[in-house]
C-alpha cells in the first residue's frame, strides 16, 4: 500500500529542501529581528510620528494574510515598480517584513517588562539614553521574551512553506514536485512533514538550552 521504494531515489532531492527552508527561516529571522527591534524602539520612543508609523505598520502586516503579502511582493511589486524579485528574494523580503511586525510587538512587551528602576539606576549613573537601551534594557527585554521569540521563529519556519506557491524550491515545494511526478502523495509529504517536525523540535530544544544558560549566569 505504501510505495516508499518508488520515491526512494527522490528522497535526497526532498531532503536538500531542508537547507533551503532553513535559509529562508534564518535569513528572515535576522531581518525580522533587526526590523522588529527598530519598530519596537519607535513604539517606545518619544516621537509620535514614529509611534504612529510603527503601529500602522504592525497593524497592516498582522491584519492581512501572509500569502497575500507574498503575492503583493512577488507579483504586484514588479508591475508597479518594474522591480522583479526572484522567488527567493521575494520570500525573504516578505517573511522579514512580516515577522518584523510580530517581533516588534514581542520586544515592545519585553521592554515594558523591564523594571523601570533599571532605567533610573542607569540615568543616575549618567549613562546616555542609547546606551541604556542597547546595554541595559534590550538585553533584559530579549531574555524575558525568549520563549515568545522562539515561537515566532517556529511559526516562520512552518509558514516559509508558502514560498512553494511562488516557486521557491523549499522542502514543501520539493515534496509537491515529487508527488506530481510519481502520482504519490502520502510518501513525499510524510517525508517533508517529518523534516519540518524534526526541525521544529531541534529549534525548541536549542532554545531551552539557551534559556537555561541565560537564566543562571
Amino acid at each position, binding site marked *: 500500500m505504501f510505495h516508499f521504494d518508488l520515491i526512494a531515489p527522490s528522497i535526497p532531492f526532498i531532503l536538500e529542501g531542508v537547507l533551503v527552508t532553513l535559509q529562508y527561516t534564518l535569513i528572515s529571522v535576522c531581518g525580522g529581528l533587526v526590523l522588529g527591534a527598530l519598530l519596537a524602539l519607535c513604539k517606545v520612543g518619544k516621537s509620535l510620528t514614529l509611534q504612529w508609523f510603527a503601529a500602522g505598520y504592525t497593524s497592516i502586516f498582522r491584519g492581512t494574510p501572509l500569502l497575500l503579502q507574498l503575492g503583493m511582493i512577488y507579483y504586484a511589486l514588479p508591475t508597479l515598480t518594474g522591480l522583479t524579485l526572484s522567488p527567493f528574494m521575494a520570500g525573504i523580503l516578505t517573511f522579514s517584513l512580516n515577522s518584523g511586525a510580530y517581533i516588534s510587538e514581542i520586544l515592545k512587551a519585553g521592554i515594558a517588562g523591564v523594571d523601570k528602576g533599571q532605567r533610573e539606576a542607569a540615568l543616575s549613573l*549618567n*549613562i546616555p539614553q542609547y546606551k541604556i537601551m542597547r546595554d541595559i534594557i534590550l*538585553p533584559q527585554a530579549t531574555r524575558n521574551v525568549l520563549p515568545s521569540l522562539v515561537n515566532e521563529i517556529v511559526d516562520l519556519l512552518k509558514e516559509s512553506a508558502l514560498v512553494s506557491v511562488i516557486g521557491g524550491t523549499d522542502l514543501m515545494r520539493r515534496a509537491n514536485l515529487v508527488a506530481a511526478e510519481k502520482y504519490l502523495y502520502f510518501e513525499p509529504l510524510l517525508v517533508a512533514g517529518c523534516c519540518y517536525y524534526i526541525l521544529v523540535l531541534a529549534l525548541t530544544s536549542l532554545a531551552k538550552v539557551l534559556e537555561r544558560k541565560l537564566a543562571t549566569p
Partner: protein
Amino acid sequence: MIELKYISKSFGPLTVLHDVNLKVKPQEIVVLIGPSGSGKSTLLRSINLLELPSHGSVRVGDAVYHAVQGPQEKVKQAIRKRIGMVFQNFHLFPHMSVLENLTYGPVQVLGLTTEQAEAEAFALLDRVGLKDKPQAYPLQLSGGQKQRVAIARALAMKPDVMLFDEPTSSLDPEMVKEVLDVMRELAQKSMTMVVVTHEMRFAQAVASRLLFMDQGRILEDTTPKAFFKMPATVRAQAFLDRLV
C-alpha cells in the same frame, strides 16, 4: 553644593512638593524623615532630576536646572555627573556580574580603560567588604551584599554627593548593619550625603542635619539632637510617638 529653590512637583492634580527650599553644604550629612507619602523620595529624586520639578530650580555645583525651561539635557548630565544614588531596591543590572556592574559606568561614561576601571572596582569592593565577589551575579547575592555593590557602583562614578532612598528598608534586619556601616564609613570620609531613612539610630548618630517632611513641606530643619529631644512641631511629635 546643592541648592533647591521653590521646588514644586505635581503628579496630575496631586501636588506632592510645595515650594521647597533646601541648601546642602559640602560634607553635610542630611537625613530626611517623615511619614509615608510626605514627598521624601520625590524631593530626593528631584536633586538628580529623576523627578523633574514642575516649578523652581535645582543647582548642583554650578549647573542650574530651571523647571520652566524645557529639557536641558546638558544641565541634567552636568548635575547627575556629580551625584550618586542608591535605591531601596538596589536596581543592580542583573545580566552583568558584580565587576561589570562597577565598571560599566566608568568605562562607558567616564572613558576609563577596562583595566583602570577594574582596578578601581576591586578597590571599591574591598572597601565595602566584598572583594571575594567580583564574578558573582546579583541574583546570587544577599540583600545586604546587593546594596553594598549598589553603593560601590555609585561610588565608582566618583560623585561629590550621594543620595540614599531608604537603603535598608527592603533588607532583612540582620543585614541592615552591614549597609549602615558602609554608609557610616562614607560619612567619616567626608562624603556629602542626603539620606531618606527610617533608621532613627543611624540618623541620631551620623546626621549633621535632620529634616522632617510632611505633606510636601519641610517642617523642621534642625540637628538630630534637638529633634529627638523635643521636636518643634506637633506633627513631628506625633510622628515620633508613632515610632516608639
